[in-house]
């Protein structure tokens, strides 16, 4: 709950100038960045849409000067004329105003110049930088006019800044998307891949399977279609792979510290990679015989060829990271107590969520033949082990695991494959492209139904599943409409195989007796969302084992963040703190950076440039990769559609 002296942010004007301070309380529905490090410590904030002042006492003229100087110093790439030169001219005009040496002509020149810069600039930096200053000129004209020839200097203000684009802010790992997309446009493919690797340990993997929240925050969608950010990342990373080129990252100078990482999934690998670059010795203990976690045993090869993942893991090992496979924490001889004795200076827990949630249907504990949980099924297929067979399969669930199960089944000889999902298609959390590909391959979707009872024959073989029809009511906590059963709507689906894929939760048995590490009621580890710190100093955690089953990129982001915290902790064991950059990231995450209603003044351009798919007839009986990489020509054309939405935000503390 913050206070507002003046705000023109978010399309709302709140002008409390002249009103007593008691009336400065901010409206409940207005999301402004009031807090940087400690509650309500922000005195002023200026960004691409306007600015707000939490109190009087901050000179708007000084704020504008600081903002444009920051644009010049940190945001303007210098490649287009209006932004490079124009914002410098404007910044110097404002400096003269602040120094009291400006003349009337300076002030008269400022406003039209700013408008021209915004109109002519190539990207959002130049297009947005003038906006808050123009608003300041509109609402605080007298303050500016008072500076002309005043002979009085206004002290400069310090701005803590962040340059980011909506796509970058939407990405949990804050990949520098506009830069790596631009590098593809400029044919600097290896630079593009290296840029992606700064925040993302495995771009060839994420470039194939990321859920891409960035694309849902892509401003190009307001013009025509969002940029194929994920596929451009894949293009650049695959180019690096095709040439056998080595990424630029290197192991840092040895610090002498040792860190244990539990789990070679995306969170653990990301954490290990960053720690190795910081010079720490890392040992990963991985329960399975292969690294990658869910990426290896949860995602089928037709979406993510195993060799792609294995290469990434090899590259991480080349940084000096040691991975001990088939070593499960919690097995006899390697328990929590033993781990504590092994002399590691810090521990990261990235064990993921591999326990499949139960259906709550009658008979599910009877171990009927033909009943297997989704993650177990996919892991068996990934490991080449024998698993359920048959002609007909029903999978319960609406997420990517469910889709992976049905498409895998088709490739293994099942003819009649169904998904049953208790909500409607609109609410399915699975990737839209996956759903479409599954439909193309012949998967049947049955919405608004839920299994209640398993049916089996005398020999204990599954024969079918009894279901109830559902109807949707009010939204629940997740924002999706809550399904409720329709009484008397029972019906039976005959099937050979039934697979629940309705969510996973972590297996934290190994933490029994572990002091100070909290475990939630959903069986997740309690760890700070920004630092990854658990209740036990020196032990950090992130990924699915903290959040519950979520996405790969969130796990990578958690591993990155934990690595920063661990690195700081190893340097100086102290309660974890966030630095300015992390505070600004958090601050921007609290306000809307993408407006789907924003009108962007561009005519519709070229459509999204595509890539080839294997035709259904070719792909349906094997696990060959279905999506092909984009052609270079398409990649460059697609990259050229990017609007480069970098904007500067700054706070005065």
């Amino acid at each position, binding site marked *: 709950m913050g206070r507002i002296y003046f705000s023109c942010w978010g399309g709302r004007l709140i002008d409390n100038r002249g009103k007593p301070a008691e009336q400065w309380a901010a409206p409940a529905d207005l999301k402004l960045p009031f807090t940087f490090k400690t509650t309500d410590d922000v005195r002023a904030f200026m960004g691409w849409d306007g600015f707000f002042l939490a109190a009087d006492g901050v000179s708007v003229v000084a704020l504008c000067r600081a903002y444009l100087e920051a*644009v*010049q*110093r*940190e*945001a*303007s*790439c*210098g*490649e*287009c*004329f*209006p932004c*490079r*030169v*124009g*914002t*410098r*001219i404007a910044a*110097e005009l404002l400096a003269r105003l602040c120094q009291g040496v400006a003349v009337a002509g300076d002030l008269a*020149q400022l406003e039209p*110049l700013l408008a*021209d810069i915004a*109109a*002519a*600039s*190539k990207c959002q930096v130049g297009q947005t930088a003038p906006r808050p200053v123009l608003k300041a000129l509109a609402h605080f004209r007298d303050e500016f006019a008072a500076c002309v020839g005043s002979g009085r200097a206004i002290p400069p203000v310090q701005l803590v800044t962040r340059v980011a684009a909506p796509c970058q802010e939407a990405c949990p790992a804050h990949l520098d998307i506009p830069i790596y997309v631009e590098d593809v*446009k*400029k*044919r*600097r*493919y290896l630079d593009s891949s290296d840029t992606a690797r700064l925040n993302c340990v495995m771009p060839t993997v994420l470039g194939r399977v990321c859920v891409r929240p960035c694309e849902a925050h892509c401003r190009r969608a307001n013009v025509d279609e969002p940029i194929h950010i994920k596929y451009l990342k894949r293009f650049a990373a695959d180019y690096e792979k*095709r*040439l056998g*080129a080595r990424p630029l990252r290197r192991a840092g100078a040895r610090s002498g510290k040792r860190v244990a990482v539990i789990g070679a999934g995306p969170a653990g690998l990301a954490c290990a990679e960053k720690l190795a670059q910081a010079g720490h010795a890392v040992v990963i203990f991985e329960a399975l015989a292969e690294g990658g976690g869910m990426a290896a045993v949860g995602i089928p090869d037709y979406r993510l060829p195993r060799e792609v993942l294995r290469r990434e893991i090899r590259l991480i090992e080349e940084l000096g990271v040691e991975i001990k496979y088939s070593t499960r924490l919690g097995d006899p001889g390697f328990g929590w107590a033993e781990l504590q004795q092994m002399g590691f200076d810090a521990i990261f827990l990235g064990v993921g969520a591999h326990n499949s949630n139960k259906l709550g249907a009658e008979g599910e504990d009877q171990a009927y033949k033909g009943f297997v949980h989704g993650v177990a099924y996919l892991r068996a297929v990934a490991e080449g082990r024998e698993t359920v067979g048959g002609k007909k399969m029903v999978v319960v669930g609406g997420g990517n695991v469910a889709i992976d199960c049905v498409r895998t089944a088709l490739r293994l000889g099942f003819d009649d494959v169904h998904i049953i999902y208790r909500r409607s298609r609109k609410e399915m959390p699975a990737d839209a492209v996956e759903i479409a590909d599954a439909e193309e391959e012949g998967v049947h979707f049955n919405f608004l139904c839920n299994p209640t009872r398993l049916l089996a024959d005398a020999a204990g073989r599954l024969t079918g599943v009894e279901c109830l029809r559902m109807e949707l009511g009010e939204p629940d906590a997740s924002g999706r409409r809550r399904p409720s059963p329709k009484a008397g709507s029972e019906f039976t689906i005959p099937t050979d195989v039934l697979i629940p894929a309705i969510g996973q939760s972590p297996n934290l048995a190994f933490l029994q007796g572990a002091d100070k590490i909290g475990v939630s009621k959903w069986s997740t580890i309690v760890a700070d969302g920004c630092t990854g710190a658990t209740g036990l100093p020196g032990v950090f955690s992130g990924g699915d084992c903290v959040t519950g089953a979520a996405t790969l990129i969130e796990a990578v982001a958690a591993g990155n963040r934990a690595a920063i915290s661990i690195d700081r902790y190893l340097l100086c064991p102290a309660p974890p703190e966030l630095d300015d950059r992390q505070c600004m990231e958090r601050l921007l995450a609290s306000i809307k950076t993408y407006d789907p209603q924003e009108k962007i*003044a*561009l*005519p*519709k*351009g*070229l459509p999204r440039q595509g890539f080839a798919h294997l035709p259904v007839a070719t792909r349906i009986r094997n696990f060959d990769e279905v999506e092909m990489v984009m*052609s*270079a*020509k398409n990649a*460059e054309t697609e990259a*050229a559609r990017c609007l480069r939405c970098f904007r500067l935000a700054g706070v005065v503390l």
Partner: protein
Amino acid sequence: MKTNPTVNLTIDGRPAAVPFGATILDAAREAGVRIPHLCKHPWIHRLASCRLCLVKVAGVDGVVAACTTPVAEGMNVTANDDDLLRRRRQQMQFILLNHPLDCPVCDKGGECKLQDLTYELGVADVPFRARIGEQRIDKLSPLIERNDERCIRCGRCVAVCEEVQAVGAYKFAGRGYDVRIDTKTGGPLDCEFCGQCVAICPVGALLSKQFKHQARVWELTHTTTACGYCGAGCQLELETRRGRIFRVESDRKRSLNHGQLCVRGRFGWDFTHDSRRAASPLIRRGGELAPATWDEALDAVADGVRHALAGGGPEAVAALASARLPVEDIWALGQLFGASRTAVAGQDAYAAALRIVRERLGHFGSTATFADLREADAILLLGSDLAAEMPVPHLAALAASREGDARLVVAHPTPTKLERFATARLRFRPGAADATLLLLLRELVEQKGQRVDFIMKHTDGFAVFKAGLDRLDVADLCARTGLAVDDVRAAAAALAGAQRPVAVLGPQALAGARASAVTGLAIDLLLALGNVETGLLLSADRCNLAGSMLAGAAGSSAGVIEAGMAGRLGALFICGGDPLVYGLGADQLRKAMEVTGFVVACDSFAGETAKKAHVFLPTTTFAERDGTYVSAENRALTLTPAVPPLAGAWPECKIVGELAKRLGKPAPAETLAEGEIAHSLFGAAAAPREARHLAAFLPRLKMPADGKFHFGELPVAAEPPHGDLLLVVGPIFQHNGSLSGWSKAIAQVAAAPFIELHPADAVRRGLRAGDRARVAADGVELTAAVRLNDALTPGVAFAPPHFAAFPAGRLLRDAPYAAVTVAKQSG
């Protein structure tokens, strides 16, 4: 190929129809509407940084950049109005804000986009202020001066170096108004000095130091001619005034090479005006070469030839011609001395390759053009360091790989530039190109990567051929080539299924006695891949290598030298070049010259070969004469003289004509009637002078009479050379033959000879970088400075042959590699 639907729109009231995907700027050009622009250039991606081309689209607020806005059906564009003019002037004011008033001393004057646009838009003053920081002028880089004060930071240079040359020597450094364009290293330029950046810079920020303050561009006359260095067949604009060349550029719109040049073509032309040019014939009198008149010299030559003929008949006189000589001159030599006694110096392997192509395909030379290379979806570079042999065409291979997703297979005994971009690399042992091809063919067929439909329809003999492949001893071939079978598999996989494969054969493949076998196998590979028609490119590192073979030089260079060494020659006519410095078998030639009674040398410079001749005749350079070259892609290019010949220098054809007269023989046609000789030799239509830039192709490959190509018999792979250290001798991109050694400009970027060793090989011999090493083979001992390169294969060294101070050609016999000993030079 799906054609783009046409889009109709209106610009400033005028209709325009362009393909879907075109931009408003493209449409404006088509509609005849002028929209000012500065940063756009066809060689690079649309920078959209100058913002001069801002236009208005009806229904859209504000302004958009015409260069990057795609057209849409029914779009209504305002390209010119008062507001747009004001905005454009403002962009110019931004650029001019701290631009130095250097026009009176800036070489760009007269061809400067900043000048032109300021004038066009009527920008008279700049009402803004901004402080500019320190701006540096780089005078340290060779050949190119970088003036930060004049730089407008448009970014064209950064883009061209990355996107076209794949070098990336430049980067933007800093941010905001303080941004500069700097080299990636921060120091002087260390790049390929191709000068594409100089050509693309719209202002005087990147200048040729060679041209600096030499002339005003409007004073220069332009002559289009072909470059006299390598076989790329680039077309140059020689810019001259009063009989001197001041600058060389290339016409972006009209030249075959799209205006792109290399350091040799762009800067290495200065040898024409070098003070060391030979201007007088020389006759050896009393052991010393002394100046003589042309009459005296020609009489002496005629005497010498007559004497030789009298002593040994026609077989006693032979000519070694440089592959730089135009077609007409080689033909004249052949007419005078007899085709079987006229050989192109050091090019027997290439000649053998041509014979195989003629036998197997009924065609002369390459079947692929550079455009085919650009459009290829798989490229095999076998024994070819294309970036050094033919720099401008290597850009086509680069573009195919980076823009066209082509799979590049680089098979070479030493590291090369294109290796970095390769999908598969085969570092075969020197001399093992034939074994490499055998392995590649076997793996390709094993993977079923051959084009079955093409083979069935257009070839026969495949079954026998395949049976031969199956019988190959893979382990033995891997041992000979030094290759791992997995690498060969990867290479075969890269070529398998290609729709438009191109195989480029270079000197390390067409080497010595293996040239025929390698060529035959390459043809078999292209048959298996289903593309002989546009698939074979023979790399030619001389401007008329292809043409010289066509013009009637049927002799063998090794044969002539052998005859000389055995004392069977009474007279030897070395026409062009400095083969004692550069060339295979240079030491054998030296011996032959010592034994032969009468040796004549002709060249533009009196080099090492001249010093050992009895008569030396000074010749004209490519810039001073007429003639026809045939490039590596089989184009007949016409030379047009840009400057009059140096007083005292004659073109070779004139020498041969005068000699013929004195010998009582009919004079080969002296006047180069436009293309007459070329036409009579290979049916190429003569291009009229105005259309010279079109340069006619020789006839393309035709299907054989019986409608089928035949697979050949599998050769037995030769035993590659053995030795503790194998030296590979190959070109470097800065130089071409020995001619570039006379260019002072080239000397600035590559003056010193060297031998490159793997660090392990150096350490074992007690050598460090910079040490002088003794390099010996076959009784020849030379010294050179050592460089280290850990990208080399241990046991293989590399040295360029271009330098008189280290004539590496003397270490070679008939192939561009040899076993050598290398030791530290004591003392």
